[in-house]
């Protein structure tokens, strides 16, 4: 059985339905990439999986347990961590306190403050700075480190390259194999198709709230993916 199974999931905001019957699955240790144009429902999908947004209909199961009615703080304790869009560091906390607060679910595992510093060495000299004093790339590293501190089984990452210089994005993406190497499944939302294909095992392309195309990243036909992305067949 897959670690994460999403079946026919619909969700949205008020009367607006952003997801229309999404199904996907992620195995233990696997990396999924979710691609799609703005407004395709990528962020809504992650927010619904992590419990920040209630599902309208459909099922989400995590390690065989139905979680579509669970709240975000319960799911964090079960082992689902989220790197939210826009990083969302706690502004009045230092870098180190932001990392420590990530350990709130009290899950034992590989990741500790020292190991996050080993993954992102540039954070060491910033440990006593407040989150908002950092560059965008450093903030993103703190946000990823904070999520890792919960030792998640499933890590959701929402647009971690948003607004960052390409060189910083490369550096952050270099940390992904190390993260999934410790058995963590990763679901990441990414706008850059090349990057999405190169880091993932499976790719799902969303279009207007449904899965337009999905498949193994290594075998994905790039032109078909681009057509799905822009809705050329719709």
């Amino acid at each position: 059985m897959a670690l994460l199974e999403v079946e026919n999931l619909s969700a949205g905001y008020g009367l607006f339905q952003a997801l229309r019957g999404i199904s996907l699955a992620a195995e233990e240790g696997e990396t999924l990439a979710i691609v799609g144009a703005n407004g395709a429902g990528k962020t809504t999908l992650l927010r619904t999986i992590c419990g920040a947004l209630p599902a309208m209909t459909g099922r989400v199961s995590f390690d065989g347990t139905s979680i579509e009615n669970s709240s975000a703080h319960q799911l964090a304790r079960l082992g689902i961590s989220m790197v939210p869009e826009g990083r969302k560091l706690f502004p009045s906390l230092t870098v180190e306190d932001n990392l420590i607060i990530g350990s709130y679910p009290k899950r034992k595992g590989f990741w500790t403050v020292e190991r996050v510093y080993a993954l992102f060495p540039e954070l060491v000299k910033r440990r006593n700075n407040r989150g908002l004093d950092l560059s965008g790339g450093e903030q993103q590293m703190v946000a990823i480190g904070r999520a890792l501190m919960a030792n998640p089984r499933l890590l959701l990452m929402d647009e971690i390259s948003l607004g960052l210089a390409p060189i910083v994005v490369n550096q952050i993406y270099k940390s992904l194999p190390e993260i999934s190497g410790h058995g963590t499944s990763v679901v990441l939302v990414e706008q850059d198709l090349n990057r999405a294909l190169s880091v993932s095992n499976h790719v799902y392309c969303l279009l207007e709230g449904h899965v337009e195309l999905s498949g193994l990243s290594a075998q994905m036909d790039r032109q078909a993916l681009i057509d799905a992305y822009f809705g050329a067949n719709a």
Partner: protein
Amino acid sequence: MIAMSTMLNGVLLGGLYALYGLGLSLTFGIMRTVNLAHGDIIVLATYLALITTQVLGLTPLMSLAVLVPVMFCIGYGLQRLILNRTLKDGMMPAVIITFGLSFVIQNGLLLGFSADRQVLRQGAIETMGVTLAPGVTIGVFPILTLAVLLVMIFALQAFMGRTLLGRAFRATSDDPATAELMGIDGKRIYGLAMGLSFAIIAVTGVVMGIRSNFSPFDGPARLIFAFEVIIIGGMGSIYGVLAGGLILGIAQTIGGAINPTFFQLAGHLVTLGILVVRPSGLFPETIERD
């Protein structure tokens, strides 16, 4: 000598005012809503201490052993059972509920205890004084009040800065939605914060009842002082509460030394002045939410 005596008494009075502000600052900083019944809850705690001393035969300070846990539970229950239900509708419902609670407490106390002024009797310590120099005598109990305040401020600062739960309090204050993603149950944090605030209020109420007599309608004046302490010190700052209390206390005693009728007015004017010059207070900690 008179100047020194005035300053010292201002500092000691400020210790009491800072106590008034401490519990309010905590909930204001974390929940971002104002507990308008804060002053009345201080008075309620004083009356609960009165009952405890009468029923169990304890001294007021010993009654804290019972009162602090009881008040913690009342605060936790108030937040979890009533105030947490209104969170999604913004800060206004909590303000209105505590406004109503204020009247319920005042009139409940009036029914139960009449409007007669009461006092908590701790014994000789109430009137003891130390003479530091000729003409400069300060009370022992006010010094004790200041010491209690300092211990609570340092303990609270250490709790907020060094423990995981304290960091969770600050994270929830910054951004409750993101705190949920970290596994933090915001409703539980709010309950604990209100409980902690009520535990501090228990100490405040007993100290107030030993220092001066009290009646069921004394709450609103205490709320005003607590507010002024927070306005001067800055929202969410624990050390700011100390600064706010001392500035308010010194302003009042200096005003009172010039002319006894200026006592309260001087405190209000200083508060207004700081509000004009630094609208977010001297040491604001709390960060504006998006």
